[in-house]
């Protein structure tokens, strides 16, 4: 299975910028999100109900369709932990302010978790399969499992990705990650997954999600074993974690120089493993030899593990 297109809006120069992986700098608290000119991708008349996270997701979608040279995907699958969190907060504020009086409905209407996937379908006029997975740090991995199944079922061009926003008091990530000193932020990444080959030629080999994780090392070993790989055959490991034990284990079972903490570059948001997947695609395209493999190890919540395996 191939990744035919990848598009990310983040704090890094990821958007429409092949080779961005060589230009990454660790985020500092004052690094801003790099917003492209949304007007280039979304007609102004269509933006009045869209906030940043929706504009980001729709813009990445448009970019993916351009890259894959297609008009419509055969499925739209999105992972998001918090959904349209800002609209949720806006509507809560409106309830509070209305004090029993009339409340304007727009924020409520846009507050559901599937607003992102729904607005993408509306924007494209797309009537195909449309699902939203919302399982904290594993939201993207669950979406990716679904997308792999969709391709296996014969859907040729599956739009899959993830988006999350934070920055208000409803978001508990800061609390959760307070020891990490990481910038809590937002991001959107979308991909086209297909059985058809392309010039990109990056394979998505496997993905899985593990809850109530008991043993990180054994789980990684089982995952590699089912893909007939050894630890040595993995060339690079991109990981996220909220405690040091994860990095210690990964350093021990892989070599220390193979492991990279991607959160330093993406910032903290629940679906930043989608950023990591785009980073892996870029690394494999720009720096690797055919056959090289990248494992993404998402252990942002200690009990939940997501594993994604890619190769060139």
């Amino acid at each position, binding site marked *: 299975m191939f990744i035919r297109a990848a598009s990310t809006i983040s704090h890094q120069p990821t958007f429409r910028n092949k080779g961005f992986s060589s230009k990454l700098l660790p985020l500092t608290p004052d690094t801003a999100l790099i917003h492209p000119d949304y007007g280039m991708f979304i007609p102004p008349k269509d933006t009045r109900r869209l906030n940043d996270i929706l504009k980001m997701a729709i813009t990445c979608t448009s970019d993916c369709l351009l890259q894959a040279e297609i008009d419509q995907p055969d499925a739209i699958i999105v992972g998001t932990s918090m959904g349209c969190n800002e609209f949720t907060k806006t509507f*809560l504020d409106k309830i*509070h302010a209305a004090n029993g009086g*009339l409340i304007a409905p727009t924020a409520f209407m846009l507050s*559901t978790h599937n607003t992102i996937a*729904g607005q993408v379908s509306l924007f494209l006029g797309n*009537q195909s399969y449309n699902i939203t*997975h919302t399982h904290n740090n*594993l939201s993207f991995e*669950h979406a990716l499992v679904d997308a792999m199944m969709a391709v296996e079922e014969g859907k040729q061009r599956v739009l899959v990705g993830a988006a999350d926003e934070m920055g208000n008091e409803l978001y508990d990530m800061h609390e959760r990650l307070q020891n990490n000193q990481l910038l809590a932020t937002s991001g959107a990444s979308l991909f086209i997954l297909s059985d058809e080959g392309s010039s990109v030629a990056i394979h998505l080999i496997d993905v899985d999600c*593990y809850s109530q994780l008991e043993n990180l090392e054994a789980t990684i070993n089982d995952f590699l074993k089912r893909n007939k790989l050894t630890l040595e055959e993995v060339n690079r490991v991109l990981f996220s974690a909220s405690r040091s034990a994860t990095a210690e284990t990964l350093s021990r079972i892989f070599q220390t120089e193979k492991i990279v903490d991607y959160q330093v570059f993406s910032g903290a948001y629940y679906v930043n493993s989608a950023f990591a997947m785009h980073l892996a695609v870029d690394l494999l395209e720009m720096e690797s030899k055919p056959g090289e493999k990248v494992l993404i190890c998402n252990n942002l919540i200690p009990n939940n593990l997501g594993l994604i395996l890619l190769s060139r």
Partner: protein
Amino acid sequence: MRIFVTGIGVVSALGDTVQQNWNALKTGNTGIQWSDRLGLMVGEVKQTNESIMRAYALPQVDFSRTTLLALIAAKTCWGENRLVPTLKTGLVAATSAGGLDRMEEYYFRHKTDPDFVMNTLMTHDNGRTTDRLANLLGMNGFVGTISTACSSGANAIMHGARLIRHGRLDRALVGGSDPLTSFNLKGFGSLMIYDPDICKPFDANRKGLNMGEGGAFLLLESERSLVETGNKPLCELTGWCNATDAYHQTASSPEGVGASITMQGCLRMAGITAEQVNYVNAHGTGTGNNDLSETAALKKVFGVKTPPFSSTKGFTGHTLAAAGAVEAVFSVMAILENALLPNANFTTPMPETDLLPVTTFKENAGVEYALSNSFGFGGNCTSLLFKRHH
């Protein structure tokens, strides 16, 4: 690969057990009542959070009602089954509210009581309510959450079936739950779609919906799993389809485009003709828009011979993300009991589509195939097709 339903559990305003729910539907007793506390007609689950926590001897932590309602249904559904290393068992739960019930309490109290525990917020996101459910059920491994507004429950069932078909799981506990929250009560209120009385799905004079709460789960198994568990199938899940209306964020298209794609998709997948469907448990919220759109879709798919159909939301209220799962359980029961479920409060057919739902409980109805519809915000449409197991 065949997908068997081997367990069901449901909690709604009609009761905490499948039997209580069935008896209420059979005798035509609605669970929708006036709530002084909420100032609305709602389908409220009688048990309080405290009584559920006592019943299951849960630790005194801040559980979301989403988790607690799911727990009642999931425990009933799971029954005496055991986790075994030889069967890959997963959990797919649906919710739209997640921990919103706890979070809104935090949010409103935090404004006046800065010491109100931050811990409450830790139950906030949807995944957390599922993780806690998994924890209480002792499940690990593949645990996911789907949130597509009011079609969520149906999509969780579909997803579980696909995970089994693709060999990722042998068994899947699938369903959904949603509690009544101020946020959703005010939200649907802001859309001005409440019936001040008990809702009248598919009636010309329908005024809107009633909110409800609940949870429902189904246990799906592969053939291989059946051999090992020895469970007896209740019925089979032979069709599923999800599609998007792509018409409006909240409104359904007047022609019922998405709904007709999903119903037709189920028939195609199961390889049956429209005439073979014996009962449709409709989404039927009682809003002007939904019922018009859904009846247009029924006519498009079934032509002049619309099968018996009804909405059970006049009994349970609209249980949002749980609705697809609650109504899937009712559809399974319709097959098991060979009966058609009544549609409450129907008197006058809609002039536009002129369709008559089933209005009384009918036994010996020859239900071989039952179709269940669920539609949500974002134009999200899902249909599921259940087949009698012979």
